[in-house]
């Protein structure tokens, strides 16, 4: 039994990839009842792998590829799943009942699409005036870019973030596309929908929430816009350095492609670091490096000294040593490295998930610990249509209705791999 903070909240998800689905999983972690309406018969984008030989997102195994893909697994725990063709009248009837059932509807089609499907806000609130509808189109529901398509990597580029992420000597071609908005948008929209439910207590009505993913990125990077507006300066990539702090960087540690981050934010941290490096004199009054002023004037020299030092040690060991001296230091983890953290094991953070098609592995755990009712991974990422019958029964359909829908391919529990 997972946390029940959100017990009694019904969440209806018609959403792809992560920004919508992952948030729904978080709500599920917190006790909400989440039903994911999955595209059918067309395979949902989230489950759409390339050639399994080349697509790194697909786990080994012999089950259907669309059940083995990481994108789906990472964003769909703790929900129930119904695969429904909402382009059919029967499908629409099911969806309509789901909308009556729901407190929250999460959709992340590009702007306008859901209206074209006949489920714009005006229709939705006719069906259920208490429901809150959340739309997650990247550029929002209005404006010149209406109808354009993009996802996380593009919003990152247009929010000005991409250009400050690179190496100081690098070119934009080198900048790795990232999905930061997919990680942060869910955190924002949970606040949004719960806020609207609180307002519903006063007004008796749900509300429509237009969340432009690019705007949710914008507020997170005040430095970018401010440096331009305040000082007419276009922020340049600072990579791992900080203009006001030395040392502040990423250094090589022993072993191939192994790294450690080290930061000394104040004199005492610097003093201890210098001592660790057998150069206490660097922190003695009289030596220019004993003051932050002297240090920021000798960034490169200091960094190269540190590199010489860190090269001799394993990143985890060295981080232990430095932290013991009160110095900010952490190994730079490659994907497998979390399993080496005694801390995460001590906190039982990893989760073992049993799934018919992917090998049993330790997966990453929850974003938070809660007392007294801790979150638990009650439902693994559902198979397509896994809960069709249960959900339809709950909505009042008879087993005959269900059998009919299945035969008319209005619902289903398998995709044709080939479909796009």
């Amino acid at each position, binding site marked *: 039994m997972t946390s029940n903070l959100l017990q009694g909240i019904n969440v209806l998800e018609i959403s792809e990839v992560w920004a919508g689905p992952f948030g729904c999983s978080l709500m599920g972690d917190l006790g909400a009842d989440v039903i994911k309406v999955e595209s059918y018969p067309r395979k949902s984008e989230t489950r759409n792998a390339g050639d399994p030989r080349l697509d790194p997102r697909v786990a080994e195994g012999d089950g259907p590829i669309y059940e083995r893909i990481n994108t789906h697994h990472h964003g769909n725990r703790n929900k129930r799943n119904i695969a429904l063709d909402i382009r059919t009248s029967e499908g629409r009837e099911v969806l309509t009942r789901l909308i009556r059932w729901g407190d929250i509807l999460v959709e992340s089609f590009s702007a306008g699409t859901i209206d074209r499907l006949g489920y714009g806000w005006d229709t939705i609130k006719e069906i259920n005036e208490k429901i809150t509808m959340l739309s997650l189109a990247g550029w929002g529901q209005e404006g010149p870019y209406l109808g354009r398509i993009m996802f996380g990597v593009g919003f990152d580029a247009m929010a000005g973030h991409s250009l400050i992420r690179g190496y100081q000597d690098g070119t934009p071609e080198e900048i790795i596309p990232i999905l930061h908005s997919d990680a942060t948008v869910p955190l924002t929209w949970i606040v949004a929908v719960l806020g609207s439910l609180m307002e519903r207590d006063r007004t008796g009505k749900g509300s429509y929430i237009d969340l432009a993913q690019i705007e949710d990125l914008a507020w997170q990077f005040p430095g970018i816009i401010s440096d331009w507006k305040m000082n007419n300066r276009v922020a340049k990539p600072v990579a791992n350095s900080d*203009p006001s702090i030395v040392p502040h960087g990423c250094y090589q540690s022993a072993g191939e492609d192994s790294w450690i981050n080290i930061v000394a*934010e*104040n*004199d005492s941290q610097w003093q201890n670091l210098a001592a660790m490096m057998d150069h206490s004199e660097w922190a003695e009054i009289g030596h220019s490096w004993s003051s932050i002023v002297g240090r920021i004037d000798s960034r490169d020299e200091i960094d190269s000294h540190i590199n010489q030092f860190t090269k001799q040690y394993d990143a985890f060991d060295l981080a232990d040593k430095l932290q013991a001296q009160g110095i900010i230091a952490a190994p730079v983890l490659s994907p497998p490295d979390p399993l080496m953290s005694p801390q995460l094991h001590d906190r039982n953070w990893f989760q073992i998930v049993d799934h018919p098609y992917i090998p049993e592995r330790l997966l990453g755990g929850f974003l938070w610990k809660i007392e007294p009712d801790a979150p638990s991974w009650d439902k693994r990422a559902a198979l397509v249509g896994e809960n069709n019958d249960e959900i339809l029964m709950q909505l009042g359909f008879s087993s005959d209705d269900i059998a009919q829908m299945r035969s008319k391919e209005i619902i289903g529990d398998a995709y044709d791999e080939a479909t796009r």
Partner: protein
Amino acid sequence: MTQPLNGMCVVEIGDSIAGSACTKTFSDYGARVIKVEPFSGNKIRRMPPFKGDIPDINGGAYHLAFDTGKESIIVDYSSNSGLEVLDRLYQLSDLVIFDTTVEKTKKLRSMINGVKYPSTVSITPHGMSGPFQDRRENDMSILAWTTRMYRNSMENMSPLRNAPGSTLVQIGHTAAAVAVGIYWGHQHDQIRRDAEVAGVEAILGNVDTGFVSWIFTGNLPERIGGQLKTRYPTGIYPCKDGYVILSANEEPWFSRLCHAIGHPEILEDERFTKDRENNWHAFMEYLGPYLDQHDKNYIFTHLQEHGVMVAPVLNASDLLDDPQAKARKSFVKIDSAIGEHFLAGAPFHLNKMNDKSFKLESAPKLGEHTNTLLKELDYSKEEIIALFRAKIIG
């Protein structure tokens, strides 16, 4: 006209009223005073009263009065980056006043060595050596060491302090004197000096304590409160509309008083010529009626005309209206962090009354001058922000 101390630069590194009182006079007569403060602000900023009783780090009465015309810079000198800033400040200045713990003072003073450095004055409660050097005291507990609390009180009642703050002010004021002294010396013989003012000693070694009298006579001071009934009249006496203070127990003032109140016969009266210490009540039959009939300002004027040392007992509300204060502009209205505010004016006047040698300028906001000063000390914008980031300056 320029002020007498123009061109002189004093650095104040302190955390009590004493240091602020010490550098105030320098500042008001034209010296540049740089006040080095911790992030929480110098303690003096937290001393009430505040306007409307609403605390304000820039609006405390002591701060407004004692930090006039100073510059405020926030530096955390607990680590090397801060010490490096201080080192540049030292070299900018002619005099450094320390008013903090002995431990800190020793550390900060140890950096000051050699010709390019200024002279220093260190203010501490018990001095920088000896078993009590690390004791923490406050305004009242220091006074207790000086025999004054004991002497200022009455038999069978608890000893009594002076007005809150006055002890620390006296200590700071003492430091100002030695400070200007060694500054003069430094200018003339190029000898850098470190002076030390121990609060207890500064007051105990001064006048108005019972110690020396006791050494000379072995008699403890009489703790008789306001009225000395053996050698009268001296002390505070009630009159028609308040109180006056008399010092007429000795000649020639006693005779003058008797004439002034119209009872010269007292001077022939054996009760007073032979046995005065036992006849206070008898004497009061002459003085009492006179005091009862007249108000304090009349008594003041009238007795003074006869050369009797007498003064009215005034309270806060009387001060601004006092004719002498008005005539001399003893109180000055200035603009301050809390708007229009009254402060006491010049303690002394050079050449002529109210010339420009003394100037009261408003007290600085906490950290108001950090930026400009650091620029002056040759720090780049980038370095300044780095120091701020590292919580060295604020």
